């Protein structure tokens, strides 16, 4: 007979300190993304499945076969993918995992995920035309925001997101309902990589430039050192009573490293990047903790 447990709550994810930090963070966009390469990549992010042809790029595994320029292949013998750019829909999609497993960690991973979504959304509003927040399980799972003026509304929307359980495939399907899929930031713990494999591949095949974001918590690499623990999976509510000793801790650390490898491999197989971001001190957020997000977005 399992005892009931209380899920940790994430109250007020966007504290005053974070809100005061956000404008400065969004203002660093020019410095961080000033390079030519970054600009090119930023441009790439608005390429779409339909729109104006803006050039070619080297074919990459997972690209939509319909966009291969066979004429160029006939001329050069190399595969090139046609680059199209939306005219008026240069947007970013931020998918955020609302599952209970995101409540694990100290502080909960969901806190970092929401702040990460706020930063990514803010950057998109400041740089591009719009951002779509795809939150499977929410009452309004696909909310679109346009212009930097909607940043408060974006933050409010993120704060109001519930805890919900949806499969990664459902989340991917929800993201693909948009008319054009550009750059997709998927924020999740990717706790069970095989469950995400099909979703990442389908997104990639539909032309989405997928970037995985994994808000790291200390427990991902540093298991408990000892004690008799009741380990609970908040998603399945399964639990395990475990006396922890040194050998178990070492083995668990090995398993966590193995999980990280599986996560990286999964994204590599989909031709995508997986960024692991550590939030730092959640109570006293510092600009330096969030600059890597800006930097990674500019790549």
């Amino acid at each position: 007979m399992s005892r009931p447990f209380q899920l940790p709550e994430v109250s007020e994810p966007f504290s005053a300190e974070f809100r005061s930090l956000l404008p400065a963070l969004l203002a660093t966009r020019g410095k961080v993304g000033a390079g030519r390469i970054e600009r090119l990549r930023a441009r790439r992010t608005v390429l779409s499945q339909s729109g104006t042809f803006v050039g070619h790029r080297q074919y990459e595994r997972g690209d939509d076969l319909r966009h291969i320029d066979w004429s160029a292949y006939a001329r050069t013998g190399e595969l090139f993918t046609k680059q199209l750019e939306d005219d008026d829909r240069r947007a970013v999609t931020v998918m955020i995992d609302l599952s209970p497993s995101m409540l694990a960690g100290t502080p909960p991973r969901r806190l970092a995920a929401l702040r990460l979504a706020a930063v990514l959304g803010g950057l998109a509003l400041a740089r591009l035309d719009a951002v779509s927040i795809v939150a499977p399980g929410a009452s309004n799972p696909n909310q679109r925001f346009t212009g930097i003026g909607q940043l408060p509304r974006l933050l409010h929307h993120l704060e109001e997101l519930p805890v919900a359980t949806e499969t990664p495939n459902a989340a991917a399907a929800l993201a693909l309902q948009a008319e054009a899929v550009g750059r997709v930031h998927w924020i999740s713990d990717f706790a069970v990589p095989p469950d995400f494999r099909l979703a990442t591949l389908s997104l990639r095949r539909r032309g989405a430039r997928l970037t995985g974001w994994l808000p790291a918590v200390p427990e991902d690499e540093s298991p408990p050192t000892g004690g008799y623990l009741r380990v609970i999976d908040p998603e399945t509510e399964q639990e395990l009573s475990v006396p922890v000793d040194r050998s178990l801790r070492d083995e668990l650390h090995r398993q966590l490293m193995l999980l990280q490898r599986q996560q990286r491999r999964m994204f590599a197989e989909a031709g995508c990047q997986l960024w692991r971001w550590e939030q730092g001190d959640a109570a006293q957020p510092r600009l330096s903790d969030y600059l890597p997000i800006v930097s990674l977005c500019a790549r």
Partner: protein
Amino acid sequence: MNLTEPQYLWALLLLPLLWWLSQPPKPRKQVVSAHLAQWQLAMRALRRKPPRGSWLRFALLALALIAACIAAARPFQPAGQGPTKLVVLLDASASMAVTNGDQSAFARAVEQLRPDLDAVPEHVDVTVLRCGGDLLRRYGVAARELQDLGEPAGSLDADLVQLARELTTSECVAWTVTDGQGQTQLPEVGALTMLDTAGPNGVITAVRIVDAWPLPTLQLELDIEAHGSSQQIDASLHVQGAVLQPQTMRVELQRGRMQTHRLSLQRSKNGGNLTIELRVAGDRLQVDNWHTLRVPPLPAPRVAALADGDAGPFVSAAAGALAEEVGGEVVTMADGVAVGLLLVDGGFVALQKENGELEKRRVLTFGTRLSQDAEPQPWLLPSPVDWSRTSDLTRGLDLSELRIQRAWQNLLPAGEPFVWWVDGNRKVPLGVVVDHGETASVHLAFRLEDSNLPLLPAFPQLLRRAFVRSYGKAQTSIATPLVPPPGERDLMARAEADDRPLPAFADPEVVLTRWFVAVGLLALAFRAFVR
């Protein structure tokens, strides 16, 4: 199955507590993790399983507790139908000493019992009651081994019929082993084993002894009887041992009728065992045919005689004759010489102390002054002289011819007079016996040469009686032998019945405690392997 102490089953109420204690401890710290799969993989890699309650483990533990409770209640399988106790009533009366060859009936009974008792199942309580003579009880191993049952003797005082009847219950069986002698009927319940002891038997039923100690004369009075199939039974009496002349006497006995025979014997000087035996042809019970009397040796006194110069030869002659008659010897009175009897004729011997008591007990004096203070006055021709007709010294003696020329007054110590001068209505003692309990001394107020006493035919007898009285009876006892009880004499008069075998005993009670202990231990052992 039954329980000896079922109150221990209350311990089963501990089962809920046991269930509670069997639960694994609850972790106090809670960790919410998205990596439960990794925890499980790590546990699996280390071949570990989380602590958890197992119904099988609890069931095994509960089984161990239940088995322990039942074991504490001492379970057993009740015994089957039939007796579980055996009481052997073993007749050990005197008739069981009848021999057949070189083995008595009692010994044969014991030999028969031994293998039968060995065959009695171990769970049967065995008691052996030796009936007859001393009542002995043996129980358990001592009973099965028939230890120290003694020899048959005495009468069968126990009523075997009543004993067997009262002992016999649904759980107990009595087994009577007897020859039926001295009984009118035999037990009708339980097992019965009869022993054949019938046959002719002669028996000395009583021995009476008339002992003339310290004189060698010994008279025996024997009551004898014989039993057999014929009306007239020839027998012989044999007396031998501590007598000068062994005697044999042929007797004709009527069946079952007691005869009394008297034997006059002269015992030997050194004493010893005197054997009296009645011999009857075909006698089956020898032990009641003979008796052995322990005859002590004769005193063989050392007789000394003291006489002054005026004395005649009488006292020396009397000492010699007495010593010869009683097997003693005459010794000369001197310092360091032990004397058994002292004869003194005249003179002075310091025997009397100031308080009037005599220092020496076995003394016979004739006109002897016993104390320095005594002043005897001569007393001429005291006449007439009379004597006691009842005294041990003079009973049956004729002293009418006693003439005394001179006697001495104020000479005799205080004592019992047995001869005296009759002065009208007054009797003046001329001889007294001073009684000292077991011994005595005899004193006469005249000397032998002043009277014709040595010449009288009664003198040797008086001298012998004075000797006997002086020695007393302290060492003369000859133990009168025990005689066989009346019921054990006629071996032809016996109750008879057919032998009855022992019934089948109940199956043993099976104690199940060890099985439950084993089940409990087995459950605990299995529990150690169940994860």
